[in-house]
Protein backbone atom coordinates (compact mmCIF):
# COMPACT_ATOMS: atom_id res chain seq x y z
CA UNK A 1 0.00 0.00 0.00
CA UNK A 2 2.53 2.54 1.17
CA UNK A 3 4.92 1.65 -1.62
CA UNK A 4 2.15 2.27 -4.13
CA UNK A 5 1.57 5.81 -2.85
CA UNK A 6 5.26 6.56 -3.02
CA UNK A 7 5.44 5.42 -6.62
CA UNK A 8 2.13 6.97 -7.62
CA UNK A 9 3.34 10.51 -8.41
CA UNK A 10 5.61 8.98 -11.01
CA UNK A 11 4.12 11.28 -13.61
CA UNK A 12 7.28 11.40 -15.63
CA UNK A 13 6.99 14.44 -17.86
CA UNK A 14 8.50 14.72 -21.29
CA UNK A 15 11.09 17.24 -20.15
CA UNK A 16 12.32 15.11 -17.31
CA UNK A 17 12.82 12.18 -19.62
CA UNK A 18 14.61 14.34 -22.12
CA UNK A 19 16.89 16.19 -19.75
CA UNK A 20 17.17 14.18 -16.60
CA UNK A 21 19.82 11.56 -16.03
CA UNK A 22 18.60 7.93 -16.42
CA UNK A 23 17.37 7.91 -12.80
CA UNK A 24 14.96 10.88 -12.40
CA UNK A 25 14.50 12.02 -8.82
CA UNK A 26 11.12 10.37 -8.33
CA UNK A 27 12.50 8.63 -5.27
CA UNK A 28 14.73 10.51 -2.87
CA UNK A 29 18.32 9.69 -3.67
CA UNK A 30 18.99 7.74 -0.50
CA UNK A 31 21.75 5.31 -1.18
CA UNK A 32 21.02 2.10 0.71
CA UNK A 33 23.88 1.41 3.08
CA UNK A 34 25.95 -1.49 1.96
CA UNK A 35 27.39 -4.29 3.99
CA UNK A 36 26.22 -6.09 7.07
CA UNK A 37 25.24 -3.01 9.10
CA UNK A 38 23.11 -1.70 6.26
CA UNK A 39 21.41 -5.07 5.94
CA UNK A 40 20.54 -5.04 9.65
CA UNK A 41 19.26 -1.45 9.41
CA UNK A 42 16.93 -2.38 6.59
CA UNK A 43 15.73 -5.48 8.48
CA UNK A 44 15.26 -4.48 12.11
CA UNK A 45 13.46 -7.75 12.91
CA UNK A 46 16.56 -9.71 11.93
CA UNK A 47 18.72 -7.38 14.02
CA UNK A 48 16.54 -7.73 17.14
CA UNK A 49 15.92 -11.47 16.77
CA UNK A 50 19.50 -12.27 15.82
CA UNK A 51 20.86 -10.05 18.61
CA UNK A 52 18.73 -11.72 21.28
CA UNK A 53 19.60 -15.16 19.95
CA UNK A 54 23.30 -14.31 19.91
CA UNK A 55 23.00 -13.15 23.52
CA UNK A 56 21.45 -16.51 24.47
CA UNK A 57 24.21 -18.39 22.64
CA UNK A 58 26.84 -16.39 24.54
CA UNK A 59 25.04 -17.12 27.82
CA UNK A 60 24.85 -20.82 26.99
CA UNK A 61 28.45 -21.21 25.84
CA UNK A 62 30.01 -19.11 28.59
CA UNK A 63 27.58 -20.08 31.37
CA UNK A 64 30.45 -20.80 33.83
CA UNK A 65 31.70 -17.19 33.46
CA UNK A 66 28.40 -15.54 34.45
CA UNK A 67 28.87 -15.94 38.21
CA UNK A 68 27.13 -19.30 38.21
CA UNK A 69 27.77 -22.17 40.60
CA UNK A 70 27.50 -25.90 39.91
CA UNK A 71 23.86 -26.21 38.69
CA UNK A 72 23.57 -29.72 40.15
CA UNK A 73 25.07 -28.95 43.58
CA UNK A 74 22.57 -29.96 46.25
CA UNK A 75 22.24 -27.93 49.44
CA UNK A 76 19.27 -29.18 51.48
CA UNK A 77 19.90 -26.55 54.15
CA UNK A 78 19.12 -23.73 51.70
CA UNK A 79 15.96 -25.07 50.10
CA UNK A 80 13.38 -22.84 48.35
CA UNK A 81 15.05 -19.53 49.15
CA UNK A 82 13.36 -16.52 47.54
CA UNK A 83 15.41 -14.57 44.97
CA UNK A 84 18.01 -12.42 46.74
CA UNK A 85 21.46 -10.87 46.27
CA UNK A 86 22.98 -14.25 47.11
CA UNK A 87 20.65 -16.39 44.96
CA UNK A 88 19.54 -14.17 42.09
CA UNK A 89 16.69 -16.44 41.00
CA UNK A 90 16.30 -18.19 44.38
CA UNK A 91 16.88 -21.89 45.06
CA UNK A 92 14.72 -24.92 44.27
CA UNK A 93 13.40 -27.60 46.61
CA UNK A 94 16.77 -29.36 46.64
CA UNK A 95 18.65 -26.15 47.36
CA UNK A 96 20.09 -25.86 43.85
CA UNK A 97 20.73 -22.37 42.51
CA UNK A 98 17.95 -21.60 40.00
CA UNK A 99 20.01 -18.85 38.30
CA UNK A 100 22.81 -21.30 37.49
CA UNK A 101 20.35 -23.95 36.40
CA UNK A 102 18.52 -21.56 34.07
CA UNK A 103 21.78 -20.38 32.45
CA UNK A 104 23.05 -23.93 31.94
CA UNK A 105 19.56 -24.89 30.74
CA UNK A 106 20.04 -22.59 27.74
CA UNK A 107 22.54 -25.14 26.40
CA UNK A 108 19.97 -27.91 26.06
CA UNK A 109 17.38 -25.69 24.38
CA UNK A 110 19.84 -24.24 21.87
CA UNK A 111 21.48 -27.59 21.09
CA UNK A 112 18.08 -29.22 20.53
CA UNK A 113 16.76 -26.26 18.49
CA UNK A 114 19.79 -25.98 16.20
CA UNK A 115 20.30 -29.73 15.76
CA UNK A 116 16.67 -30.40 14.90
CA UNK A 117 16.62 -27.47 12.46
CA UNK A 118 19.79 -28.68 10.72
CA UNK A 119 18.97 -32.40 10.69
CA UNK A 120 15.36 -32.04 9.53
CA UNK A 121 16.44 -29.58 6.80
CA UNK A 122 19.09 -31.94 5.44
CA UNK A 123 16.89 -35.04 5.55
CA UNK A 124 13.83 -33.13 4.35
CA UNK A 125 15.84 -31.66 1.47
CA UNK A 126 16.97 -35.10 0.35
CA UNK A 127 13.48 -36.62 0.59
CA UNK A 128 11.88 -33.61 -1.10
CA UNK A 129 14.38 -33.72 -3.98
CA UNK A 130 13.80 -37.42 -4.62
CA UNK A 131 10.06 -36.89 -4.38
CA UNK A 132 10.12 -33.91 -6.75
CA UNK A 133 12.23 -35.69 -9.34
CA UNK A 134 11.15 -39.32 -9.32
CA UNK A 135 7.48 -39.76 -10.14
CA UNK A 136 7.22 -43.31 -8.85
CA UNK A 137 8.82 -42.52 -5.50
CA UNK A 138 6.74 -39.36 -5.16
CA UNK A 139 3.35 -41.00 -4.68
CA UNK A 140 4.71 -43.52 -2.17
CA UNK A 141 6.75 -40.99 -0.19
CA UNK A 142 3.98 -38.43 -0.10
CA UNK A 143 1.35 -40.94 1.09
CA UNK A 144 3.79 -41.88 3.84
CA UNK A 145 4.37 -38.24 4.73
CA UNK A 146 0.61 -37.59 4.78
CA UNK A 147 0.28 -40.37 7.34
CA UNK A 148 3.16 -39.03 9.40
CA UNK A 149 1.75 -35.51 9.29
CA UNK A 150 -1.61 -36.77 10.54
CA UNK A 151 0.00 -37.55 13.89
CA UNK A 152 0.25 -34.28 15.85
CA UNK A 153 4.01 -33.69 16.12
CA UNK A 154 4.15 -33.47 19.93
CA UNK A 155 2.32 -36.79 20.24
CA UNK A 156 4.66 -38.40 17.73
CA UNK A 157 7.66 -37.17 19.72
CA UNK A 158 6.02 -38.43 22.94
CA UNK A 159 5.49 -41.88 21.43
CA UNK A 160 9.11 -42.05 20.27
CA UNK A 161 10.41 -40.90 23.66
CA UNK A 162 8.26 -43.44 25.51
CA UNK A 163 10.20 -46.20 23.76
CA UNK A 164 13.72 -44.91 24.31
CA UNK A 165 15.72 -43.84 27.32
CA UNK A 166 15.64 -40.12 27.93
CA UNK A 167 18.69 -38.35 26.52
CA UNK A 168 19.33 -35.15 24.60
CA UNK A 169 20.28 -37.19 21.55
CA UNK A 170 17.01 -39.14 21.59
CA UNK A 171 15.03 -35.93 22.06
CA UNK A 172 16.71 -34.49 18.97
CA UNK A 173 15.95 -37.62 16.91
CA UNK A 174 12.32 -37.78 18.09
CA UNK A 175 11.58 -34.13 17.27
CA UNK A 176 13.46 -34.37 13.95
CA UNK A 177 11.33 -37.32 12.82
CA UNK A 178 8.21 -35.34 13.69
CA UNK A 179 9.38 -32.30 11.67
CA UNK A 180 10.73 -34.03 8.52
CA UNK A 181 7.37 -34.27 6.66
CA UNK A 182 6.94 -30.48 6.69
CA UNK A 183 10.35 -29.81 5.13
CA UNK A 184 9.94 -32.60 2.58
CA UNK A 185 6.61 -31.20 1.42
CA UNK A 186 8.05 -27.70 1.16
CA UNK A 187 11.07 -28.84 -0.87
CA UNK A 188 8.95 -31.03 -3.11
CA UNK A 189 6.64 -28.11 -3.86
CA UNK A 190 9.55 -25.81 -4.68
CA UNK A 191 11.21 -28.45 -6.87
CA UNK A 192 8.01 -29.12 -8.80
CA UNK A 193 7.47 -25.42 -9.50
CA UNK A 194 11.12 -24.84 -10.39
CA UNK A 195 11.05 -27.65 -12.94
CA UNK A 196 8.44 -25.66 -14.87
CA UNK A 197 10.60 -22.53 -14.99
CA UNK A 198 11.79 -21.47 -18.46
CA UNK A 199 15.45 -21.44 -17.46
CA UNK A 200 15.27 -25.02 -16.23
CA UNK A 201 13.46 -26.07 -19.39
CA UNK A 202 16.13 -24.27 -21.38
CA UNK A 203 18.84 -26.14 -19.50
CA UNK A 204 17.08 -29.43 -20.19
CA UNK A 205 16.70 -28.53 -23.88
CA UNK A 206 20.39 -27.65 -24.04
CA UNK A 207 21.19 -31.16 -22.90
CA UNK A 208 22.36 -30.42 -19.37
CA UNK A 209 22.45 -33.54 -17.28
CA UNK A 210 19.99 -33.89 -14.41
CA UNK A 211 22.58 -33.90 -11.57
CA UNK A 212 24.01 -30.65 -12.90
CA UNK A 213 20.57 -29.06 -13.21
CA UNK A 214 19.81 -30.02 -9.64
CA UNK A 215 23.15 -28.64 -8.45
CA UNK A 216 23.11 -25.40 -10.45
CA UNK A 217 19.41 -24.50 -10.66
CA UNK A 218 17.22 -26.42 -8.24
CA UNK A 219 19.33 -26.60 -5.09
CA UNK A 220 20.26 -22.89 -4.85
CA UNK A 221 16.62 -21.90 -5.21
CA UNK A 222 15.44 -24.17 -2.42
CA UNK A 223 17.89 -22.68 0.08
CA UNK A 224 15.94 -19.50 0.84
CA UNK A 225 12.62 -21.18 1.73
CA UNK A 226 14.48 -23.91 3.63
CA UNK A 227 16.40 -21.37 5.71
CA UNK A 228 13.17 -19.64 6.71
CA UNK A 229 11.47 -22.95 7.47
CA UNK A 230 14.51 -24.09 9.48
CA UNK A 231 14.26 -21.08 11.80
CA UNK A 232 10.60 -21.81 12.48
CA UNK A 233 11.46 -25.47 13.08
CA UNK A 234 14.20 -24.39 15.49
CA UNK A 235 11.63 -22.38 17.49
CA UNK A 236 9.10 -25.22 17.44
CA UNK A 237 11.76 -27.74 18.49
CA UNK A 238 12.73 -25.63 21.52
CA UNK A 239 9.09 -25.53 22.62
CA UNK A 240 8.65 -29.25 22.00
CA UNK A 241 11.80 -30.07 23.99
CA UNK A 242 10.52 -27.98 26.91
CA UNK A 243 7.12 -29.69 26.71
CA UNK A 244 8.67 -33.17 26.57
CA UNK A 245 10.91 -32.44 29.56
CA UNK A 246 8.02 -30.78 31.39
CA UNK A 247 5.84 -33.89 31.16
CA UNK A 248 8.76 -36.18 31.97
CA UNK A 249 9.46 -37.62 28.52
CA UNK A 250 12.44 -35.50 27.54
CA UNK A 251 15.89 -34.69 28.82
CA UNK A 252 16.83 -36.80 31.87
CA UNK A 253 16.34 -34.94 35.18
CA UNK A 254 20.11 -34.80 35.92
CA UNK A 255 20.65 -32.36 33.05
CA UNK A 256 19.21 -28.92 33.81
CA UNK A 257 16.92 -27.89 30.93
CA UNK A 258 14.20 -25.25 31.05
CA UNK A 259 11.48 -27.88 30.77
CA UNK A 260 13.05 -29.92 33.59
CA UNK A 261 13.40 -26.92 35.91
CA UNK A 262 9.73 -26.07 35.33
CA UNK A 263 8.70 -29.69 35.89
CA UNK A 264 10.53 -29.71 39.22
CA UNK A 265 9.08 -26.35 40.24
CA UNK A 266 5.58 -27.49 39.36
CA UNK A 267 4.75 -29.08 42.72
CA UNK A 268 5.61 -25.85 44.53
CA UNK A 269 4.52 -23.27 42.00
CA UNK A 270 1.64 -21.85 44.03
CA UNK A 271 3.95 -20.89 46.89
CA UNK A 272 7.27 -20.47 45.02
CA UNK A 273 6.25 -19.33 41.55
CA UNK A 274 9.73 -17.99 40.69
CA UNK A 275 11.14 -21.50 40.11
CA UNK A 276 8.71 -21.89 37.21
CA UNK A 277 8.74 -18.29 35.97
CA UNK A 278 12.47 -17.71 35.43
CA UNK A 279 12.99 -20.63 33.01
CA UNK A 280 9.64 -19.73 31.42
CA UNK A 281 10.82 -16.18 30.71
CA UNK A 282 14.13 -17.38 29.24
CA UNK A 283 12.37 -19.96 27.06
CA UNK A 284 9.83 -17.43 25.79
CA UNK A 285 12.50 -14.82 24.98
CA UNK A 286 14.63 -17.36 23.12
CA UNK A 287 11.72 -18.68 21.08
CA UNK A 288 10.60 -15.12 20.37
CA UNK A 289 14.12 -14.26 19.16
CA UNK A 290 14.16 -17.21 16.77
CA UNK A 291 10.66 -16.43 15.49
CA UNK A 292 11.58 -12.77 14.88
CA UNK A 293 14.69 -13.92 13.03
CA UNK A 294 12.51 -16.22 10.93
CA UNK A 295 10.01 -13.46 10.11
CA UNK A 296 12.85 -11.10 9.22
CA UNK A 297 14.56 -13.68 7.00
CA UNK A 298 11.27 -14.46 5.29
CA UNK A 299 10.68 -10.79 4.49
CA UNK A 300 14.27 -10.27 3.35
CA UNK A 301 14.55 -13.44 1.26
CA UNK A 302 11.09 -13.43 -0.29
CA UNK A 303 9.70 -9.91 -0.76
CA UNK A 304 6.53 -11.26 -2.37
CA UNK A 305 5.63 -13.15 0.80
CA UNK A 306 6.40 -10.11 2.95
CA UNK A 307 3.37 -8.28 1.64
CA UNK A 308 1.03 -11.14 2.30
CA UNK A 309 1.82 -12.26 5.80
Amino acid at each position, binding site marked *: MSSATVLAPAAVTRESVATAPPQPDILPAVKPKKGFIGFLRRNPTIAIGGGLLLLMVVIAVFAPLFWTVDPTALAPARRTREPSAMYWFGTDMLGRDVYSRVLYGARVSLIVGFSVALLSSVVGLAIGMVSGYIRLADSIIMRFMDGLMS*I*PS*ILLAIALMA*LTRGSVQNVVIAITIAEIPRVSRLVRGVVLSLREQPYVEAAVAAGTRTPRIIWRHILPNTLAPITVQATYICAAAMITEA*ILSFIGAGTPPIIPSWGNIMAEGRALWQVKPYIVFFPAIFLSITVLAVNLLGDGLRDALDPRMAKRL
Partner: protein
Amino acid sequence: MFAYFVRRVLATIPVMAIVALFVFSLLYLAPGDPAAVIAGDQATPQDVERIRASLGLDRPYLIRFGEWFWNILNGDMGVSIFTNLPVTTMIKQRIEPTLSLMVLTLCLAVSIAVPMGVVAAWKQGTWVDRAVMGFAVLGFSVPVFVVGYVLAYVFALELDWLPVQGYTAFSSGFGPWLENLILPATALGMVYIALIARITRATMLEVLQQDYIRTARAKGAGQANILFLHALKNAAVPIVTVIGIGVALLIGGAVVTESVFAIPGLGRLTVDAILRRDYPVIQGVILLFSFVYVLVNLAIDLLYTLFDPRIRY
Protein backbone atom coordinates in the same frame (compact mmCIF):
# COMPACT_ATOMS: atom_id res chain seq x y z
CA MET B 1 -19.51 -33.74 -7.02
CA PHE B 2 -20.76 -36.92 -5.39
CA ALA B 3 -17.89 -38.75 -7.06
CA TYR B 4 -15.48 -36.27 -5.49
CA PHE B 5 -17.00 -36.83 -2.05
CA VAL B 6 -16.58 -40.58 -2.39
CA ARG B 7 -13.04 -40.26 -3.70
CA ARG B 8 -12.05 -37.89 -0.90
CA VAL B 9 -13.50 -40.16 1.77
CA LEU B 10 -11.76 -43.21 0.28
CA ALA B 11 -8.47 -41.29 0.13
CA THR B 12 -8.40 -41.03 3.93
CA ILE B 13 -8.32 -44.82 4.31
CA PRO B 14 -4.68 -45.24 3.18
CA VAL B 15 -3.67 -42.27 5.35
CA MET B 16 -5.26 -43.85 8.40
CA ALA B 17 -3.74 -47.22 7.56
CA ILE B 18 -0.30 -45.61 7.37
CA VAL B 19 -0.86 -43.87 10.71
CA ALA B 20 -1.80 -47.21 12.24
CA LEU B 21 1.17 -48.99 10.65
CA PHE B 22 3.51 -46.29 11.88
CA VAL B 23 2.18 -46.18 15.45
CA PHE B 24 2.40 -49.97 15.56
CA SER B 25 5.87 -50.17 14.02
CA LEU B 26 7.38 -47.70 16.50
CA LEU B 27 7.71 -50.60 18.93
CA TYR B 28 9.96 -52.38 16.46
CA LEU B 29 11.84 -49.32 15.21
CA ALA B 30 12.92 -48.23 18.69
CA PRO B 31 16.60 -48.82 19.37
CA GLY B 32 17.34 -51.55 21.89
CA ASP B 33 14.81 -53.92 23.39
CA PRO B 34 11.49 -52.06 23.84
CA ALA B 35 10.26 -54.65 26.35
CA ALA B 36 13.28 -53.92 28.56
CA VAL B 37 12.84 -50.14 28.22
CA ILE B 38 9.14 -50.34 29.06
CA ALA B 39 9.78 -52.65 32.01
CA GLY B 40 12.22 -50.13 33.49
CA ASP B 41 15.56 -50.49 35.21
CA GLN B 42 14.34 -52.39 38.27
CA ALA B 43 12.51 -55.07 36.30
CA THR B 44 13.31 -58.76 36.70
CA PRO B 45 13.85 -60.90 33.58
CA GLN B 46 10.39 -62.41 34.23
CA ASP B 47 8.79 -58.94 34.07
CA VAL B 48 10.52 -58.26 30.76
CA GLU B 49 9.29 -61.60 29.37
CA ARG B 50 5.75 -60.90 30.58
CA ILE B 51 5.72 -57.50 28.86
CA ARG B 52 7.28 -58.97 25.72
CA ALA B 53 4.48 -61.54 25.56
CA SER B 54 1.71 -59.04 26.31
CA LEU B 55 2.93 -56.71 23.57
CA GLY B 56 3.28 -59.68 21.22
CA LEU B 57 6.94 -58.88 20.59
CA ASP B 58 7.75 -62.60 20.70
CA ARG B 59 5.72 -63.27 17.58
CA PRO B 60 6.35 -62.34 13.91
CA TYR B 61 5.83 -58.67 13.03
CA LEU B 62 3.34 -59.03 10.20
CA ILE B 63 1.12 -61.54 11.97
CA ARG B 64 1.11 -59.36 15.04
CA PHE B 65 0.25 -56.25 12.99
CA GLY B 66 -2.62 -58.09 11.30
CA GLU B 67 -4.08 -59.15 14.63
CA TRP B 68 -3.62 -55.73 16.19
CA PHE B 69 -5.15 -53.90 13.24
CA TRP B 70 -8.10 -56.29 13.12
CA ASN B 71 -8.70 -55.69 16.82
CA ILE B 72 -8.55 -51.91 16.33
CA LEU B 73 -11.17 -52.17 13.59
CA ASN B 74 -13.32 -54.06 16.06
CA GLY B 75 -12.87 -51.36 18.68
CA ASP B 76 -10.30 -53.21 20.80
CA MET B 77 -7.13 -51.23 21.46
CA GLY B 78 -5.50 -53.76 23.74
CA VAL B 79 -4.94 -53.83 27.48
CA SER B 80 -2.95 -51.44 29.64
CA ILE B 81 0.28 -53.00 30.96
CA PHE B 82 -0.11 -51.15 34.23
CA THR B 83 -3.81 -51.33 35.15
CA ASN B 84 -4.80 -54.36 33.03
CA LEU B 85 -7.92 -52.39 31.97
CA PRO B 86 -8.88 -52.26 28.29
CA VAL B 87 -7.41 -49.11 26.70
CA THR B 88 -10.80 -48.19 25.22
CA THR B 89 -12.35 -48.18 28.71
CA MET B 90 -9.60 -45.93 30.03
CA ILE B 91 -10.04 -43.55 27.08
CA LYS B 92 -13.82 -43.43 27.54
CA GLN B 93 -13.40 -42.45 31.19
CA ARG B 94 -11.12 -39.56 30.31
CA ILE B 95 -12.56 -38.23 27.07
CA GLU B 96 -15.08 -35.69 28.40
CA PRO B 97 -12.67 -33.12 29.93
CA THR B 98 -10.43 -33.16 26.86
CA LEU B 99 -13.32 -32.84 24.45
CA SER B 100 -14.77 -29.98 26.53
CA LEU B 101 -11.42 -28.19 26.63
CA MET B 102 -10.84 -28.54 22.91
CA VAL B 103 -14.33 -27.52 21.81
CA LEU B 104 -14.34 -24.50 24.15
CA THR B 105 -10.87 -23.46 22.95
CA LEU B 106 -11.92 -23.82 19.33
CA CYS B 107 -15.01 -21.62 19.80
CA LEU B 108 -13.11 -19.06 21.87
CA ALA B 109 -10.19 -18.87 19.45
CA VAL B 110 -12.28 -18.57 16.30
CA SER B 111 -14.59 -15.93 17.76
CA ILE B 112 -11.62 -13.81 18.89
CA ALA B 113 -9.11 -14.43 16.11
CA VAL B 114 -11.28 -13.90 13.03
CA PRO B 115 -12.51 -10.40 14.02
CA MET B 116 -8.94 -9.57 15.06
CA GLY B 117 -7.59 -10.52 11.67
CA VAL B 118 -10.40 -8.70 9.84
CA VAL B 119 -9.84 -5.47 11.75
CA ALA B 120 -6.07 -5.72 11.29
CA ALA B 121 -6.52 -6.05 7.54
CA TRP B 122 -9.03 -3.19 7.45
CA LYS B 123 -6.70 -0.89 9.44
CA GLN B 124 -3.58 -2.11 7.68
CA GLY B 125 -0.44 -0.25 8.68
CA THR B 126 -1.98 1.45 11.71
CA TRP B 127 -1.22 0.72 15.35
CA VAL B 128 -4.21 -1.68 15.48
CA ASP B 129 -2.64 -3.79 12.75
CA ARG B 130 0.75 -3.68 14.42
CA ALA B 131 -0.74 -4.66 17.78
CA VAL B 132 -2.49 -7.67 16.24
CA MET B 133 0.66 -8.77 14.42
CA GLY B 134 2.74 -8.25 17.55
CA PHE B 135 0.29 -10.34 19.50
CA ALA B 136 0.53 -13.03 16.82
CA VAL B 137 4.32 -13.23 17.11
CA LEU B 138 4.04 -13.41 20.91
CA GLY B 139 1.35 -16.07 20.66
CA PHE B 140 3.66 -18.23 18.56
CA SER B 141 6.59 -17.71 20.91
CA VAL B 142 5.24 -18.08 24.43
CA PRO B 143 4.70 -21.80 25.07
CA VAL B 144 1.28 -22.95 26.24
CA PHE B 145 2.37 -23.94 29.74
CA VAL B 146 4.00 -20.55 30.31
CA VAL B 147 0.75 -18.78 29.37
CA GLY B 148 -1.08 -21.25 31.59
CA TYR B 149 1.03 -20.52 34.65
CA VAL B 150 0.89 -16.75 34.14
CA LEU B 151 -2.92 -16.82 33.76
CA ALA B 152 -3.36 -19.10 36.76
CA TYR B 153 -1.04 -16.93 38.85
CA VAL B 154 -2.81 -13.67 37.97
CA PHE B 155 -6.47 -14.68 37.79
CA ALA B 156 -6.60 -17.54 40.27
CA LEU B 157 -3.89 -16.90 42.88
CA GLU B 158 -3.59 -13.10 42.96
CA LEU B 159 -7.09 -11.95 41.98
CA ASP B 160 -8.86 -15.10 43.15
CA TRP B 161 -11.53 -14.79 40.45
CA LEU B 162 -11.36 -18.34 39.13
CA PRO B 163 -10.40 -21.76 40.46
CA VAL B 164 -6.68 -22.59 40.13
CA GLN B 165 -6.99 -26.16 38.98
CA GLY B 166 -9.37 -29.03 38.46
CA TYR B 167 -12.35 -29.90 36.32
CA THR B 168 -16.11 -29.97 36.91
CA ALA B 169 -18.19 -32.24 34.72
CA PHE B 170 -20.59 -30.61 32.28
CA SER B 171 -23.45 -32.49 33.93
CA SER B 172 -23.02 -30.49 37.16
CA GLY B 173 -23.86 -27.25 35.38
CA PHE B 174 -22.59 -24.93 32.69
CA GLY B 175 -21.34 -22.25 35.13
CA PRO B 176 -18.93 -24.38 37.19
CA TRP B 177 -17.82 -26.19 34.02
CA LEU B 178 -16.97 -22.90 32.31
CA GLU B 179 -15.31 -21.47 35.44
CA ASN B 180 -12.84 -24.32 35.51
CA LEU B 181 -12.17 -24.36 31.80
CA ILE B 182 -11.89 -20.69 30.92
CA LEU B 183 -8.22 -20.31 31.97
CA PRO B 184 -7.00 -23.55 30.35
CA ALA B 185 -8.94 -22.72 27.18
CA THR B 186 -7.41 -19.24 27.01
CA ALA B 187 -3.90 -20.61 27.55
CA LEU B 188 -4.39 -23.34 24.96
CA GLY B 189 -6.05 -20.95 22.53
CA MET B 190 -3.23 -18.39 22.45
CA VAL B 191 -1.14 -20.00 19.68
CA TYR B 192 -4.30 -20.96 17.82
CA ILE B 193 -5.55 -17.35 17.95
CA ALA B 194 -2.18 -16.16 16.64
CA LEU B 195 -2.34 -18.62 13.76
CA ILE B 196 -5.91 -17.84 12.73
CA ALA B 197 -5.56 -14.06 13.15
CA ARG B 198 -2.48 -14.08 10.94
CA ILE B 199 -4.02 -16.06 8.10
CA THR B 200 -7.28 -14.07 8.34
CA ARG B 201 -5.38 -10.80 7.98
CA ALA B 202 -3.30 -12.09 5.07
CA THR B 203 -6.29 -13.45 3.18
CA MET B 204 -8.43 -10.39 3.86
CA LEU B 205 -5.70 -8.09 2.54
CA GLU B 206 -5.81 -9.96 -0.74
CA VAL B 207 -9.60 -10.07 -0.94
CA LEU B 208 -10.02 -6.37 -0.10
CA GLN B 209 -8.14 -5.47 -3.29
CA GLN B 210 -10.61 -7.32 -5.51
CA ASP B 211 -12.89 -5.52 -7.92
CA TYR B 212 -16.09 -6.72 -6.28
CA ILE B 213 -15.09 -4.97 -3.05
CA ARG B 214 -14.80 -1.70 -4.99
CA THR B 215 -18.17 -2.42 -6.54
CA ALA B 216 -19.70 -3.02 -3.13
CA ARG B 217 -18.24 0.24 -1.91
CA ALA B 218 -19.52 2.07 -4.99
CA LYS B 219 -23.05 0.82 -4.49
CA GLY B 220 -22.90 2.22 -0.95
CA ALA B 221 -22.53 -0.86 1.22
CA GLY B 222 -21.49 -0.10 4.79
CA GLN B 223 -18.00 -0.82 6.07
CA ALA B 224 -19.06 -3.66 8.39
CA ASN B 225 -21.18 -5.09 5.60
CA ILE B 226 -18.23 -5.03 3.20
CA LEU B 227 -15.77 -6.52 5.68
CA PHE B 228 -17.84 -9.29 7.18
CA LEU B 229 -20.21 -10.18 4.36
CA HIS B 230 -18.48 -9.45 1.08
CA ALA B 231 -14.85 -9.94 2.05
CA LEU B 232 -14.85 -12.48 4.86
CA LYS B 233 -17.08 -14.85 2.93
CA ASN B 234 -14.59 -14.86 0.08
CA ALA B 235 -11.67 -15.27 2.46
CA ALA B 236 -13.29 -18.24 4.21
CA VAL B 237 -11.53 -21.12 2.46
CA PRO B 238 -7.92 -20.46 3.60
CA ILE B 239 -9.12 -19.48 7.08
CA VAL B 240 -11.13 -22.65 7.53
CA THR B 241 -8.22 -24.71 6.19
CA VAL B 242 -5.90 -23.25 8.81
CA ILE B 243 -8.48 -23.83 11.54
CA GLY B 244 -8.45 -27.50 10.53
CA ILE B 245 -4.67 -27.78 10.37
CA GLY B 246 -4.39 -25.96 13.70
CA VAL B 247 -6.36 -28.71 15.44
CA ALA B 248 -3.00 -30.52 15.63
CA LEU B 249 -1.72 -27.65 17.78
CA LEU B 250 -4.78 -27.98 20.01
CA ILE B 251 -4.25 -31.69 20.46
CA GLY B 252 -0.56 -31.34 21.29
CA GLY B 253 -1.22 -28.37 23.57
CA ALA B 254 -4.06 -30.12 25.40
CA VAL B 255 -1.62 -32.70 26.77
CA VAL B 256 0.41 -29.95 28.46
CA THR B 257 -2.50 -27.74 29.47
CA GLU B 258 -4.12 -30.63 31.29
CA SER B 259 -0.98 -31.20 33.36
CA VAL B 260 -0.73 -27.49 34.24
CA PHE B 261 -4.37 -27.23 35.32
CA ALA B 262 -4.72 -30.76 36.73
CA ILE B 263 -7.55 -31.67 34.37
CA PRO B 264 -8.18 -35.44 34.39
CA GLY B 265 -8.44 -35.88 30.61
CA LEU B 266 -6.68 -37.77 27.84
CA GLY B 267 -3.60 -35.58 28.18
CA ARG B 268 -3.16 -36.58 31.79
CA LEU B 269 -3.76 -40.19 30.79
CA THR B 270 -0.94 -39.84 28.24
CA VAL B 271 1.45 -38.22 30.70
CA ASP B 272 0.77 -40.88 33.34
CA ALA B 273 1.20 -43.56 30.67
CA ILE B 274 4.58 -42.08 29.69
CA LEU B 275 5.81 -42.08 33.27
CA ARG B 276 4.79 -45.73 33.62
CA ARG B 277 5.87 -46.51 30.05
CA ASP B 278 2.41 -47.98 29.44
CA TYR B 279 2.82 -48.23 25.68
CA PRO B 280 -0.61 -49.68 24.71
CA VAL B 281 -2.28 -46.64 26.30
CA ILE B 282 0.04 -44.21 24.49
CA GLN B 283 -0.60 -46.07 21.24
CA GLY B 284 -4.37 -45.89 21.76
CA VAL B 285 -4.43 -42.17 22.56
CA ILE B 286 -2.19 -41.29 19.60
CA LEU B 287 -4.30 -43.36 17.22
CA LEU B 288 -7.49 -41.74 18.49
CA PHE B 289 -6.11 -38.19 18.22
CA SER B 290 -4.67 -38.83 14.76
CA PHE B 291 -7.95 -40.25 13.48
CA VAL B 292 -9.84 -37.27 14.90
CA TYR B 293 -7.37 -34.94 13.20
CA VAL B 294 -7.74 -36.72 9.84
CA LEU B 295 -11.54 -36.73 10.12
CA VAL B 296 -11.70 -33.02 11.04
CA ASN B 297 -9.66 -32.15 7.98
CA LEU B 298 -11.75 -34.46 5.81
CA ALA B 299 -14.91 -32.73 7.03
CA ILE B 300 -13.39 -29.34 6.23
CA ASP B 301 -12.41 -30.44 2.73
CA LEU B 302 -15.96 -31.57 2.12
CA LEU B 303 -17.36 -28.33 3.55
CA TYR B 304 -15.43 -26.17 1.07
CA THR B 305 -18.25 -26.37 -1.43
CA LEU B 306 -20.59 -24.85 1.15
CA PHE B 307 -18.26 -21.93 1.86
CA ASP B 308 -17.35 -21.28 -1.70
CA PRO B 309 -19.82 -22.26 -4.42
CA ARG B 310 -17.14 -21.43 -7.00
CA ILE B 311 -15.35 -24.63 -6.02
CA ARG B 312 -16.70 -27.45 -8.17
CA TYR B 313 -15.18 -30.84 -8.47
